[in-house]
């Protein structure tokens, strides 16, 4: 499904990723761990083509991600720390926009139903600038549920969630694993990594080691 | 009609002075970088 080969990225000549390679087959879930600043987020953003990298090749569904057409990334979804949405727009408008950008027909009732499911039904029409960190995290979950993706790059799903937020996230993740979806997550605590990850990779000093 | 010897001299001094100056600056920079570099390697 995804094969990342010898990615290297440096900021002001300090190399953050020296030579990162790993492969991820369909239906598998990979958890990437590492200290802060090890380059986990950089790696995910490079795969999502948000960030450029100096060297390296990435094949997604064995098509070259760097030189290929943009439409290759239709089934690749990246969810980062920030919700990547417009503060001025409301939750519904943001989701409609995000889905249209991915060539998905977005009907309002389906969106509203997902928002209700994740406990955001009441604030659906308020601009997301007033959302709390936990609500933003649920908005991301709703977004992930609505888009049909084959590979999800999820950056630290559990930050800023209260009790039932964590429960919601657990339910969603286990359900996706049951459905056989492939995911690549960045996590921090070990037993969650063991619970979800078929393969756990440890990123330190710019190189990827499997634990 | 006085000839413009002064202007001619000024222009040539500026142009060739700048070019020679540039070479000197490059040489000094190269010197500094290489010495700096040699220092780290020999450590």
């Amino acid at each position, binding site marked *: 499904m995804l094969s990342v080969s010898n990615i290297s*990225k*440096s*900021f*002001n*000549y300090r190399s953050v990723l020296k030579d990162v390679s790993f492969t991820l087959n369909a239906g598998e879930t990979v958890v990437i761990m590492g200290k802060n600043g090890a380059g986990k987020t950089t790696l995910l953003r490079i795969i999502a083509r948000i960030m*450029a990298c*100096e060297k390296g090749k990435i094949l997604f569904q064995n098509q070259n991600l760097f030189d290929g057409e943009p439409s290759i990334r239709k089934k690749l979804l990246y969810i980062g720390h920030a919700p990547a949405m417009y503060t001025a727009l409301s939750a519904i408008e943001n989701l409609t926009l995000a889905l249209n950008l991915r060539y998905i027909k977005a009907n309002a009732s389906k969106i509203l139903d997902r928002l209700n499911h994740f406990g955001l039904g009441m604030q659906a029409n308020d601009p997301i600038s007033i959302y709390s960190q936990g609500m933003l995290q649920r908005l991301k979950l709703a977004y992930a549920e609505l888009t049909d993706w084959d590979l999800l790059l999820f950056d630290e799903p559990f930050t800023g969630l209260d009790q039932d937020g964590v429960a919601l996230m657990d339910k969603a993740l286990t359900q996706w694993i049951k459905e056989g979806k492939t995911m690549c997550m960045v996590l921090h605590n070990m037993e969650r990594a063991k619970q979800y990850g078929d393969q756990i990779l440890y990123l330190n000093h710019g190189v990827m080691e499997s634990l | *009609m006085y*000839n*413009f*010897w002064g*202007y*001619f*001299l*000024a*222009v*040539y001094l*500026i*142009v*060739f002075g*700048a*070019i020679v100056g*540039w*070479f000197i600056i*490059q040489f000094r*920079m*190269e010197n500094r*970088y*290489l010495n*700096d*570099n040699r220092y*780290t390697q020999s450590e």
Partner: protein
Amino acid sequence: MQFFFHNKSNRVWLVLIIGLMLFNIWNIVVNTPMVPDQHWAQKIFYVHVPSAWVGFLSYFIVMVAGIMYFIKGDEHWDKVGLAAAEIGTLFISLVLITGPIWATPIWGQPWIWEPRLTTTLILFLIYIGYFMMRAFGGHAERVKRYAASLGIIAFVDVPIIFVSVKFWAPEIQSHPQVEMTSQPPGILIPFLLSLGIFTVLYRLMLKYRIHVIQVNYKRVADV
């Protein structure tokens, strides 16, 4: 990494160019005819016009380096672009200094809004922005991409600037480049010779600057 002039061919080139330059100056001072009303001032453009030519050639190379950097993604092209931008700006500022010096006796005041000088000035301002962007653009890797795209945008703008300025500022008759084609061989031959020598000098300067950037990059990257 060793000194640029350690390897034999660069040293030979340096000696050759010094010789050519001295010959060039001697040739201009002695052999070129003295134009009646301008006397020595007319000899300024044996240096002024070649510097402008080298400056524009250099900005063209920045564009080519930018395009190649995007196609190949190879680090080397960014160094070529940076070196060419720096040397180009050096020559263009020489043109902007010598231009008014030449204009004071001939046209009466130092700065005249005429097409060529104005185009050179606007290009100079664009490259001030280019170097500011290289300083404040963000981390080095991103700045390389921005610099390459700015190099392309700047040169694409040159013809547009030249045409708009050509109609905006009235043409002054006694402009060196305009006169060039209608010159007697006595003036034309030394001029073309000087042009060639300046281009050869530029080639050596470019190679030298790329080498110095390479040495600096090696030092920074290893640390």
